[in-house]
């Protein structure tokens, strides 16, 4: 009897497996795009995707379905390099896409000139999120190195946002120490001494700060900070705008090799271009990204704190150089975090 029930169990489970896996193959008519993105864009793309699908249907009559994958930007780039077949990547910083180009040759090295504004349809910056009333009196970057101030940031090795955090702090220190690299290094090292936890992605850090209640200051994407205010209420947290911060440019691009393999180049390209349209720009603004379109920006400017911004190109000579000096194996971050 046992023999029969075991055999039957195996057959039944085999059939069930076929049924479940088969149901996915049946909907092959619609084009499917995979957008591999970083952590804080979830809400934005969740709203953008159906809007694009609608637009694409109206324009070409074809149905398109967009699938999302989110995680720390470095980790996501790694997954694409390891074979996660993204049609488009929308990551936190240019270097992660450079890595995909360099290590896996999935897209041309000059990808960043293919779309307007360095392939960054929206920008953001780094601000401070503090608990209501700002009990530690944090006003600017130099307050973050004071003893007893606990700073939350994700790990620059795995998170794009964290690399922007790090570079923003470094840029501030350079500017206030007559471009003395040694002083900047001491400053950033002192800041990381005040970091109790390094999460792998921005969203993990948000949860650490907002949900688990750890830390006094959270170095955050501006859009993520504004989202926290929206989700948790302005009675719990407030945003502090530092005197100086970095212009964070999260780029987007087509992954040529995978898009061609899937035959989705046309739709994928349109998906990215539509980000620059009024609809895309307004949605980006709604989710607290700074839109590139000056008309759209003018309408929403009041929601963003006024901060003096510097670019990575001006301060660090571009991502390639910054990555090599600061975040590569054995780079400055490794050296200061070890001590």
């Amino acid at each position, binding site marked *: 009897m046992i023999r029969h029930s075991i055999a039957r169990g195996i057959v039944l489970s085999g059939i069930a497996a076929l049924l*479940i896996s088969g149901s996915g193959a049946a909907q092959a008519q619609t084009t499917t795009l995979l957008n*591999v993105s970083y*952590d804080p864009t979830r809400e934005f793309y969740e709203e953008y995707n159906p809007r694009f699908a609608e637009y694409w249907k109206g324009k070409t009559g074809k149905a398109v379905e967009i*699938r*999302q994958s989110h*995680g720390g930007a470095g980790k996501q780039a790694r997954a694409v390099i390891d074979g*996660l077949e993204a049609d488009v990547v929308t990551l936190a910083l240019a270097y992660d896409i450079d890595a995909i180009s360099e290590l*896996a040759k999935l897209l041309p090295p000059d990808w960043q000139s293919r779309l307007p504004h360095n392939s960054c349809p929206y920008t953001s910056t780094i601000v401070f999120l503090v608990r209501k009333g700002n009990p530690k009196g944090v006003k600017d970057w130099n307050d973050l190195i004071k003893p007893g101030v606990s700073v939350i940031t994700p790990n620059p090795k795995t998170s794009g946002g964290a690399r922007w955090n790090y570079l923003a702090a470094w840029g501030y220190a350079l500017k206030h120490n007559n471009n003395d690299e040694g002083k900047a290094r001491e400053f950033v090292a002192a800041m990381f001494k005040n970091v109790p936890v390094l999460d792998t992605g921005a969203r993990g850090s948000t*949860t650490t700060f907002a949900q688990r209640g750890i830390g006094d200051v959270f170095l955050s994407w501006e859009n993520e900070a504004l989202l926290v205010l929206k989700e948790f209420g302005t009675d719990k947290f407030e945003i502090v705008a530092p005197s100086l911060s970095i212009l964070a440019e999260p780029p987007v691009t087509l992954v040529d090799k995978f898009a061609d393999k899937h035959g989705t180049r046309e739709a994928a390209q349109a998906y990215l271009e539509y980000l620059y349209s009024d609809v895309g720009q307004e949605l980006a603004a709604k989710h607290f990204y700074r839109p590139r379109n000056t008309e759209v920006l003018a309408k929403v400017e009041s929601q963003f704190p006024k901060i003096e911004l510097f670019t990575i190109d001006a301060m660090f000579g571009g991502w390639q150089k910054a990555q090599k000096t600061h975040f590569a194996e054995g780079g400055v971050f490794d050296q200061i975090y070890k001590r």
Partner: protein
Amino acid sequence: MAGAAGHFGGTNKAGGRVGTRDPRWMRWGLTMVAVVFLAVMLILPLVIVFATAFSKGWAGFAAAIAESESWSAIKLTLLAAVVSVPLNLVFGVAAAWAISKFEFRGKNLLITVIDLPFSVSPIIAGMLFVLLFGAHGWLGPWLAARDIKIIFAVPGIVLATVFVTVPFVARELIPLMQAQGREEEEAALSLGASGWQAFFRVTIPNIKWGLIYGVILCNARALGEFGAVSVVSGHIQGVTNTMPLQIEILYNEYKFVPAFAMASLLVLMALLTLVVKHGIEWRAARSHAQTVDETVGVAATA
């Protein structure tokens, strides 16, 4: 517990009652510590999971489960379990049978290999598959040329689940079958049974409770596996997220009710598994007692 201790103290005359019997406050104190610990560490979290899941009532709970991404995560988790459990059932029985009934070279090596998924961290298990099947892994280019997707697709999830659940059935059966020895099978063979007959009529009935128990443990782990699956998943929403992964994603998206609704479903599956396990242990104990009775009865009449 306290009763047993008291009974023990009472019968142990040589040591004297006072020496072995704990004072009342200690017995109560220890019991209370255990109860409080259980309540805080086990019962309270369970209550919180269910309370949050139903904080917006049945409708909120049902809507959360019915969401297409959550639903596909449930299906994927069930698929992973449905594939890995039977595979490990067959493999576990075969391995345990070989190890306990035969002598061969490399037997210890086989036992060690079976234990491997227990001893390595799940993230290593996941990375192993990336190194093997990833775009730049050993088999990656070969697979890519044939457009076979393993990593960041459903097969990778299933493989990772199979890997981490390998030891459960075998580990449950090996000590049991070793203790039983091979006399009964030898007797069956000497009476003219074929190998398969001996296996199905003698071996299987002897190990059936251990086998079912192993399957239950294997199933529980297959449903709950997070680490290894997370590495090979790629987190494509609605495609490669299992229930545990989907719970983390929902939580990170500030969707607490859906996250805990999924969590409660997973907890329910686990509780169900434990109830079945308990029932089986009870039946096993009863059938064991019965066989002992019968043997005693037979011995007495003989």
